[in-house]
């Protein structure tokens, strides 16, 4: 494990150097919030943020992604044959991703990559990505990563972890992929013991600051149909607008829709994020909709995250505790409260 110290200026410079061998995505301030953008000279990366408004999931699993293309031209001998779109899987690095968002990739992995089916796009994007995490010195009051198997300096899934030591960054390689990334970084010097100690102290300190303690321990012992029939769903779902904010900002939501788009004789099959909050999500061709009421859709979201996923993969809840849905839900439906309701039901 390599630990290196960079001053903040050195680190930005090193990243610029790395742009030759990687597509480097860095958090950039865009209006009121931060978002991941490709590294370039015009906008400097800004590592002083709570978290990006949108999770980094779109860099591995784009909101809209072309799957296939085809020609509808009658004169084309290959007309109507659906063909794969060539993709660019050159290495990319997400620098400054928070450990919770990285943890999100671990949560969704069994969905995209399991023994029955393997999603080629997600897997190839994921495998070509170096996750360079930035530890959270100052977790938000809405964060509850520690309750769901993560933590502000959680290292699993990350390839590199950055510690913000004030004037300097201590950057430590965690995996082979991460070490390879670091070895290409120019500048910096080996970290001394004092720095390592300081970094560890930061991590311990931050772990203490994650206050929200969301109970999820008893969820696995509940019976699906009991929770499903619980009396609180109408109340929980009343305020919901059925917008897709929670699911689109979430690092662990994976649902998508497949659409064909045609322009002239050129057709594309595109997959777009979808949301279980939309009534259309489950509308049958016959007009029947098994989840036509909004409380049912709200219930589906929480049941899926906090119960179905738990039962299906036996690996905890489908939530990385990033707190985005808590902070940005326009009507303040709070997953922490719902988790408590479900856990104690």
């Amino acid at each position: 494990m390599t630990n290196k110290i960079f001053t903040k200026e050195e680190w930005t410079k090193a990243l610029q150097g790395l742009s030759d061998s990687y597509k480097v995505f860095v958090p950039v301030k865009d209006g009121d919030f931060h978002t991941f953008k490709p590294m370039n000279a015009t906008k400097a990366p800004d590592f002083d943020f709570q978290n990006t408004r949108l999770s980094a999931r779109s860099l591995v699993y784009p909101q809209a992604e072309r799957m296939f293309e085809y020609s509808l031209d009658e004169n084309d001998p290959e007309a109507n044959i659906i063909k794969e779109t060539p993709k660019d899987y050159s290495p990319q690095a997400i620098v400054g991703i928070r450990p919770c968002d990285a943890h999100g990739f671990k949560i969704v992995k069994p969905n995209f990559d399991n023994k029955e089916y393997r999603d080629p796009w997600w897997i190839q994007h994921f495998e070509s990505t170096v996750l360079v995490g930035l530890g959270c010195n100052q977790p938000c009051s809405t964060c509850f990563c520690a309750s769901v198997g993560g933590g502000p300096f959680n290292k699993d899934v990350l390839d590199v972890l950055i510690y913000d030591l004030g004037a300097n960054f201590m950057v430590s390689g965690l995996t082979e992929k991460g070490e390879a990334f670091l070895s290409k970084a120019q500048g910096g010097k080996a970290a001394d013991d004092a720095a390592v100690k300081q970094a560890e102290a930061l991590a311990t300190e931050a772990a203490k600051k994650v206050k929200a303690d969301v109970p999820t321990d008893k969820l696995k012992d509940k019976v699906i149909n009991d929770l499903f029939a619980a009396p609180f769903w109408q109340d929980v779902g009343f305020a919901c607008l059925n917008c897709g904010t929670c699911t689109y900002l979430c690092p662990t939501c994976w649902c998508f829709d497949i659409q064909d788009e045609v322009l002239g004789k050129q057709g594309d099959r595109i997959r777009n994020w979808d949301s279980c909050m939309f009534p259309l999500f489950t509308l049958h061709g016959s007009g029947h909709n098994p989840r036509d009421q909004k409380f049912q859709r709200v219930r589906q979201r929480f049941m899926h995250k906090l119960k179905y996923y738990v039962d299906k993969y036996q690996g905890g809840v489908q939530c990385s505790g990033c707190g985005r849905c808590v902070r940005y839900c326009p009507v303040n439906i709070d997953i922490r409260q719902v988790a408590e309701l479900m856990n104690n039901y």
Partner: protein
Amino acid sequence: MLKGLLEHIGIEPGRLNFSWISSAEATKFVDVAQQVAASVKALGPARYLIKKRAEVA
């Protein structure tokens, strides 16, 4: 009002035209048709809101 909104967004005035012509007013039809064609022609090809191949990853 749609015309107002579209113009507000940047569709040039003159691209969208409305008129009211009775079925007996063939000459009025021709007049208006000439006006419409001239006004659109003067603006040149449309630049905005044309659906192109989806800009997606």
